[in-house]
């Protein structure tokens, strides 16, 4: 696909770069040298830095290894798709691991100071007046990870090779902060740090219309902006103190319960008893019926990923 090149640079081991990536532009992060380099990536809304990429919602929506056509979501209460992954030639990305940090290398290896993604991102985004406290967990492109049978994460050999790349389409004006992951004594980049090429292209109409369905993802009442906050000003004082005029106003409180009597036929009773006998859906008739309603509803009507377990472990992880 022919896109107009707007900007390119190389980031070397220990470096990152804050880039203004406007809506419709495409950032390519490309393996050069021998490949095999993890690239941490983060982003902020260029016009409101308090809207930032959130691993949690992204992980919930797309699993632990997002790839092509998945979105990078902003944190609650904004919760909007900030960017889309247009291309991914490797298919091993991670949003389970937090960014590595100076503490991590000192604690685990006795190495201080040491290159780490938190400090690299903090230094890169300092160009835009952001503080180290403004760094948050990042998208780990090319990082090959899994979860073992006991639920513990692990890092495997990096599979990216020279020429491999990811392309990220900005769905709003962003400050994008990619960096060369600083972990050289972990398997993250197969124990060797390499440079990465960054290139910004003008996106094509085809790039943008590919995600025209995202408009549906921007139409929710509860994707909130600061005008809706009860506290709008960003606090300057670090010391916390109680507001004597505070009156709690939680949503839908008090929660009131109602006991419904449901008269079951013999067939319905048999179904209830079958579910109850499994021991998985509650101990009482009422608990089982309540579970059954919600389980049926989730299966048939819930938007997004279903949260009922199908397989807890990939076969290849065994």
């Amino acid at each position, binding site marked *: 696909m022919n896109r107009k090149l707007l900007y390119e640079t190389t980031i070397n081991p220990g470096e990152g770069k804050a880039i203004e990536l406007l809506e419709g532009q495409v950032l390519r992060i490309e393996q050069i040298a021998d490949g095999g380099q993890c690239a941490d990536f983060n982003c902020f809304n260029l016009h409101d830095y308090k809207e930032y990429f959130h691993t949690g919602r992204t992980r919930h929506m797309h699993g632990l290894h997002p790839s092509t056509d998945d979105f990078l979501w902003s944190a609650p209460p904004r919760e909007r798709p900030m960017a889309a992954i247009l291309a991914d030639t490797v298919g091993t990305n991670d949003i389970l691991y937090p960014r590595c940090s100076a503490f991590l290398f000192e604690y685990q290896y006795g190495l201080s100071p040491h290159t780490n993604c938190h400090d690299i991102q903090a230094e890169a985004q300092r160009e835009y007046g952001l503080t180290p406290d403004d760094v948050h967990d990042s998208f780990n492109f090319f990082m090959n990870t899994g979860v073992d049978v006991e639920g513990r994460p692990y890092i495997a050999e990096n599979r990216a090779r020279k020429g491999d790349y990811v392309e990220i389409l900005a769905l709003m004006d962003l400050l994008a902060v990619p960096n060369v992951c600083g972990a050289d004594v972990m398997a993250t980049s197969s124990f060797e740090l390499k440079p990465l090429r960054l290139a910004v292209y003008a996106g094509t109409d085809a790039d943008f219309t590919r995600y025209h369905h995202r408009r549906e993802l921007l139409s929710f009442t509860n994707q909130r902006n600061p005008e809706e906050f009860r506290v709008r000003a960003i606090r300057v004082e670090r010391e916390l103190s109680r507001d004597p005029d505070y009156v709690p106003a939680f949503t*839908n409180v008090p*929660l*009131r*319960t*109602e*006991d*419904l*009597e*449901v*008269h*079951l*036929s*013999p*067939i*319905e*009773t*048999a*179904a*209830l*008893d*079958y*579910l109850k006998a*499994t021991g*998985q*859906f509650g101990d009482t*008739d*009422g608990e089982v*019926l*309540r*579970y*059954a*309603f*919600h*389980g*049926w*509803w989730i*299966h*048939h*009507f819930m938007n997004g990923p279903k949260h*009922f*377990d*199908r397989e807890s472990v990939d076969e290849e992880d065994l």
Partner: protein
Amino acid sequence: MTTEQPAGRTVVVRLNQQQLELVDRTASDLGYAGRDEVLKKALLGFDALVASEGHES
């Protein structure tokens, strides 16, 4: 040979107003008469899901 089925019985299910909103909206959307009908429909539907897919919590 006859297969014995249990007699029907009355179940008391406790729901909060948010859950009842989901029940009522589902009943309305699907054209059911009311809460009873949708809860029973869900019970049979979920039973079938568990039996066919080995559905786990």
